[in-house]
């Protein structure tokens, strides 16, 4: 980076670096504060992990880097680490007096960019700025690479800035890259913290527009410029879109990868699972759903989440459910999982995703705000989860959508059978209009329609769900999925924080390993849910979460006009051709950064 770094405070970077230190030991907190101040950093201290998260969430761009101790009383340091990484995409440094290799490794696995041993030395702290810098560069490169890929795909339209490049001119990518490099650098390097501030907040609406545009263009041909043009958002830049698209892709590909190895997830149809590169299937939502009814279709009618669909796909459709079930937040009384609640809340976005399934406990009106209403086009509003088809593990679908879900055994339980929502599928639009409540209720009966297998599953599922909140590992994953509802609008009546966090924007978790061993997200009981690995969702748009963010940890997600959302969601799904879209609905919804 050629340009000098200039922090908003006017000092030369790294001076003025905004550090958040989290440690329950007051002595260390004071020492670290003093040390960091000596480095000319701007320090904020915090004795509780929760408080730290609140602070971070309250203003996403308030800090450049977080240093936290591994052992915190109110929350496992690794969990906090994951949350921060996923939600805020900030570099996190772990600290501990324990330097055991296994611990350090765990830190790295959870996404720590460094692991310091106590007692910490000044020289170690002086260098922490490199992590901030590195991230910036990395992001810029991602964008550039992405653009290059776009270029190669063809389309001189990809070129912007008036560059006249003939389509398919491969030499131009390089030029373009250089130009972009410059652009990015100028923008990004001048002021790392400023850049962060300038990040776009991908609200539900904005993301919807994005997804719409992508769908319209066709995932294969999508490119930042095209999307930008279609979106017609004047203040949005191409870079914003490129970066968002990048994350979207990463998220999808991560989901795909995650799902692939997990045979348990998919249940039978794993093979069908699209291993296609997710990028191609932007419009998953609908396409997948569309697929429904194909018996052997592993693609679940998930709204966009092909991955999720896997097994569910055919199943769901059989009953012509259109896979809708999944998301309905269902007013199920079952409050089993906190996650459920959260999920439901999130779905208030109207995305059909109602993970009804498991969330039985979702409060009424909890809608999964699956942010991506886009997914909805098509028949199945996403989270089809509910479609337990005989062979299929209906829950599987849910799980898939959410990201690595626990092995088949587990997921089932998680998914509430209620998720099935034939009603939704049938009339996505109209049904959407109905309240989530309505939907959920409809779903329930569906469950009964299924074979005894399902019933069994359902009951099992319910159980699971309950246990889920308790923090079972596998269940957690499900919870994860569910929790991920983006709450586009206010807070839903339900208060499920548990899930909130799960999906918080972390579409593109910087560390692919966020997923706990086994790929399931470990959601500790209740509150921990939120933290769990969003893995698979790697979609973190680093934009500060403002009120529009999806998941608000523990903040009730207002479910406003759920019906609208549902409709929108459904609508989206329909538009997508089955094949192209492979992105889970969750995607969309998650993406509300």
């Amino acid at each position, binding site marked *: 980076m050629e340009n000098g770094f200039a922090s908003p405070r006017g000092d030369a970077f790294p001076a003025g670096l905004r550090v958040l230190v989290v440690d*329950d*030991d*007051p*002595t*260390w907190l*004071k*020492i670290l504060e*003093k*040390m960091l101040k*000596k480095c000319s950093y701007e320090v904020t201290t915090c004795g509780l992990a929760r408080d730290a998260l609140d602070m971070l969430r309250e203003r996403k761009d308030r800090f450049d880097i977080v240093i936290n*101790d591994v*052992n915190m009383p109110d929350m496992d340091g690794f969990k906090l680490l994951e949350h921060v990484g996923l939600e805020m995409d900030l570099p996190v440094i772990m600290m*501990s*007096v*324990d330097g055991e290799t296994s611990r350090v490794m765990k830190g790295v696995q959870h996404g720590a960019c460094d692991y310091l041993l*106590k*007692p910490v*030395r*000044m020289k170690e702290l002086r260098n922490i700025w490199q992590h901030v810098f590195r991230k910036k560069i990395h992001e810029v490169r991602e964008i550039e690479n992405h653009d290059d890929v776009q270029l190669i795909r063809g389309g001189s339209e990809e070129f912007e800035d008036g560059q006249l490049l003939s389509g398919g001119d491969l030499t131009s990518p390089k030029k373009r890259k250089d130009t972009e490099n410059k652009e990015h650098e100028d923008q990004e390097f001048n002021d790392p913290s400023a850049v962060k501030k300038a990040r776009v907040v991908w609200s539900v609406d904005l993301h919807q527009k994005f997804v719409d545009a992508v769908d319209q263009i066709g995932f294969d041909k999508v490119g930042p410029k095209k999307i930008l043009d279609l979106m017609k958002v004047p203040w949005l830049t191409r870079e914003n879109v490129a970066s968002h698209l990048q994350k979207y892709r990463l998220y999808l590909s991560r989901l795909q990868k995650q799902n692939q190895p997990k045979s348990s997830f998919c249940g039978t149809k794993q093979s069908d699972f699209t291993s296609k590169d997710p990028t191609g299937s932007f419009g998953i939502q609908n396409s997948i759903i569309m697929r429904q009814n194909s018996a052997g279709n592993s693609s679940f009618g998930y709204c966009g989440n092909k991955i999720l669909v896997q097994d569910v796909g055919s199943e769901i459709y059989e009953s012509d459910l259109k896979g809708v079930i999944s998301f309905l937040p269902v007013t199920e009384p079952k409050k089993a999982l906190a996650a459920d609640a959260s999920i439901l809340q999130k779905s208030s976005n109207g995305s059909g995703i109602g993970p009804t399934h498991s969330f039985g406990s979702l409060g009424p009106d909890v809608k999964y705000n699956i942010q991506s209403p886009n997914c909805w086009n098509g028949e199945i509003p996403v989270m089809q989860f509910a479609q337990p088809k005989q062979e299929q593990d209906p829950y599987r679908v849910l799980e898939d959508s959410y990201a690595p879900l626990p092995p088949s055994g587990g997921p089932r339980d998680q998914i509430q059978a209620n998720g099935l929502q034939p009603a939704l599928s049938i009339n996505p639009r109209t049904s959407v209009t109905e309240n989530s409540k309505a939907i959920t209720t409809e779903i329930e009966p569906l469950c009964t329609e299924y074979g005894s297998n399902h019933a069994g599953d359902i009951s099992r599922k319910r159980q699971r769900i309950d246990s889920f909140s308790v923090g079972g590992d596998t269940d957690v994953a499900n919870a994860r999925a569910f929790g991920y509802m983006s709450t586009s609008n206010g807070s839903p009546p339900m208060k499920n924080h548990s899930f909130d966090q799960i999906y918080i924007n972390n579409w593109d978790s910087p560390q692919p390993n966020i997923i706990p061993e086994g790929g399931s997200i470990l959601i500790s009981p209740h509150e921990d849910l939120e933290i769990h690995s969003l893995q698979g969702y790697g979609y973190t748009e680093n934009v500060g979460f403002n009120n529009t963010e999806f998941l608000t940890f523990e903040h009730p997600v207002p479910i406003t006009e759920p019906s609208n959302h549902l409709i929108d969601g459904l609508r989206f799904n329909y538009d997508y051709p089955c094949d192209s879209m492979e992105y889970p609905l969750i995607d969309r919804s998650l993406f509300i950064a």
Partner: protein
Amino acid sequence: MDLKRQVAYMRRSLFDQGYLDEQFIQLEDLQDDVNPNFVEEIVTLFYRDSARLILNIEQAMEKSPLDFDKLDTYMHQFKGSSSSIGAKKVKSEATQFREFCKAGNAEGCLRTYQQLKKEYTTLRKKLETYFQLARQAGPAETASRPN
């Protein structure tokens, strides 16, 4: 011996006798005009906060049978805390204690705990004396390193 020299001597012996390690020097380096009594403040803070941890440990030690996991956790915290002021001997006892916890050795834990407490108390007294002396000798002296 004049006061300043006494202070320097005492300081030196704390290191030589293994009561304090490099971390203490780090704290001294942090002391400046903004925080002229930084080291003493930190030590005071440590003893105040660690009293809570000690209490937890003692209560846990009274239980029978011993909950080694819990004890290990407490001691881990305590160890981290004691490392903040460079309490070398205390930290070493804490490490030892944790080893016994992992081995499920109650006898070892008890013995080590007694030793730890002794070191903990001894160090406090020594540091109190040291800071008192240093204040008497004059602030400048205490802040600087010997030699």
